[in-house]
């Protein structure tokens, strides 16, 4: 094995919400195990990013420094070797050069850019997050396309520059069309775009140019409020109502048009081409567009001891890592909450785990749909935020107990048994701002336990108001404080 100086080595790929959470909990767990171990973090990014607040960077109400911090000084302080590098391949059986299981990485830091290295591991946590797959739609994205993004802090910064230029044009009297939503038929993360459109609307009102803007929402959801979770039902006003009602109400209240069941298939300068679920093909002109890309795995390869490519054994075709889910293809009616993974252990190699967006979901949560032309138009399942942190905590606890002799993972965190909270900002101001607060339990509906709606309606709720904004602001400062591992961080809830 990869024992280094008498210590086992736990390697984490990625330092986003799930990867960094795993690092924090492994550092905290050092005092709890009999077996000494070292934690190593590998991430191509020099900075940690509180992604949910990129929305506020994208409208100029926060700067990049308020949502990011440098990882290297923090990991140095807590004694975690940090490699600013991207993982290229996993060798779970070792290789001819190195008999220990290891990953091959390529450095992205300025001083070592392009150099490769082998990093051995006893346990590997894959928490790479997604590849932002702008290439799936021609003309999509900030690098080679015509749309902006808020998926990273630098993307959000660029989005704000273009938004401010659009606002300036409106101040000069020009009318503009602003389109926000999803840039492909299989996107997830509608919530980020949902937040962004309301914050843009809020900023336009503050700038006194709201009457100059036509705001249009476009998404692959069957109905508004689906969010890749098949929508939610909540109790309100004496009725059990679908979240679609509230999502549409928010749009109407703010004068926003919406197009749903849409797969954007091409973007040209000033023109979005999209196909609807009924098969019709349409165009939509725009002056400013923020469209979320679809996600894919980061393209990690895997090889066995003989150097044979075993990528298909470890990863799903989407590039996400296979874990303890039931991947048997079945029709929608036979899908079950039990199909979802709970330990996130790879079935082929017991010391490999994947958490957050990096694990391959067994199937969609929203109902699968496709147009008469065969174009899939359905959101992918969300695996971000609170669930990704819960997975990381479960996996780190399991690994610590396996280090001390447990034969198999001991902790479980199925998305079919955990809830999630989403606080979607609809304007940032401590007195005039607001947010839509939503909780669901469980994330993956369990129709055996909750036959009618798949969820516990006493734990699934939503409301709109200033309190939600305070909640969002509190979460921003709390989670950044916690991620920086300031005094008392471990007492704060994840």
């Amino acid at each position: 094995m990869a024992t280094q100086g008498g210590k086992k080595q736990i390697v984490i790929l990625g330092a986003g919400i799930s990867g960094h959470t795993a690092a924090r909990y492994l550092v905290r767990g050092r005092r709890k195990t009999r077996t000494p171990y070292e934690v190593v973090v590998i991430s191509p990014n020099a900075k940690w990013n509180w992604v949910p607040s990129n929305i506020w960077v994208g409208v100029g109400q926060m700067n990049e420094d308020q949502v990011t911090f440098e990882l290297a000084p923090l990991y140095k302080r807590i004694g975690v070797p940090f490699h600013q590098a991207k993982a290229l391949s996993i060798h779970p059986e070792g290789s001819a050069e190195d008999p220990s299981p290891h990953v091959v990485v390529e450095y992205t830091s300025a001083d070592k850019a392009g150099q490769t290295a082998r990093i051995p591991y006893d346990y590997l946590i894959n928490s790479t997050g997604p590849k932002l797959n702008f290439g799936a739609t021609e003309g999509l994205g900030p690098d080679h396309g015509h749309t902006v993004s808020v998926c990273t802090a630098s993307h959000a910064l660029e989005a704000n520059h273009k938004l401010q230029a659009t606002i300036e044009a409106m101040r000069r009297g020009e009318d503009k069309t602003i389109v926000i939503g999803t840039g492909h038929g299989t996107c997830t993360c509608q919530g980020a775009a949902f937040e962004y459109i309301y914050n843009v609307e809020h900023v336009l009102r503050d700038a006194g140019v709201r009457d100059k803007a036509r705001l249009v929402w476009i998404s692959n959801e069957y109905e508004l409020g689906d969010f890749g979770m098949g929508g939610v039902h909540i109790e309100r006003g004496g009725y059990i109502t679908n979240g679609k009602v509230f999502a549409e109400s928010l749009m109407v209240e703010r004068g926003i048009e919406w197009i749903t069941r849409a797969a954007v298939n091409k973007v040209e300068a000033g023109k979005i081409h999209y196909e609807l679920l009924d098969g019709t093909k349409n165009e939509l002109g725009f002056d400013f567009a923020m469209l979320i890309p679809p996600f894919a795995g980061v393209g990690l390869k895997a090889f066995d001891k003989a150097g044979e490519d075993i990528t298909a054994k470890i990863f799903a075709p989407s590039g996400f890592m296979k874990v303890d889910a039931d991947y048997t293809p079945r029709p929608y009616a036979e899908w079950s909450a039990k199909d979802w993974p709970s330990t996130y252990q790879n079935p082929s190699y017991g010391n490999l785990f994947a958490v957050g967006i990096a694990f391959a979901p067994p199937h969609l949560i929203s109902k699968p749909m496709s147009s008469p032309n065969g174009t899939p138009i359905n959101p992918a399942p969300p695996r971000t935020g609170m669930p990704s942190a819960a997975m990381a905590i479960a996996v780190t606890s399991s690994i610590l107990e396996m280090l001390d002799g447990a034969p198999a993972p001991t902790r479980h965190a199925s998305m079919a048994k955990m809830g999630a909270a989403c606080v979607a900002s609809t304007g940032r101001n401590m007195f005039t701002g607001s947010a839509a607060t939503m909780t669901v339990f469980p994330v993956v509906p369990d129709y055996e336990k909750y036959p009618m709606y798949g969820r516990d309606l006493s734990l699934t709720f939503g409301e709109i108001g200033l309190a939600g904004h305070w909640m969002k602001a509190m979460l921003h400062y709390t989670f950044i404080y916690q991620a920086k591992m300031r005094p008392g961080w471990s007492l704060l809830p994840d």
Partner: protein
Amino acid sequence: MTATNKEPYQQAYYPPKPTRLTCFMRKFLPWQLFRFGVINLKMIRLMRNSHH
């Protein structure tokens, strides 16, 4: 895009719109302070139910 139902049917005509009281309560500080407490309690309950 305010729908009046004088024009051809529009997207905006059907969804519910908040009343003036609802809009007021969304920003009314004493009520929102109370709701802030309620939301926190609900989230704590959610997290407790999520831990296995």
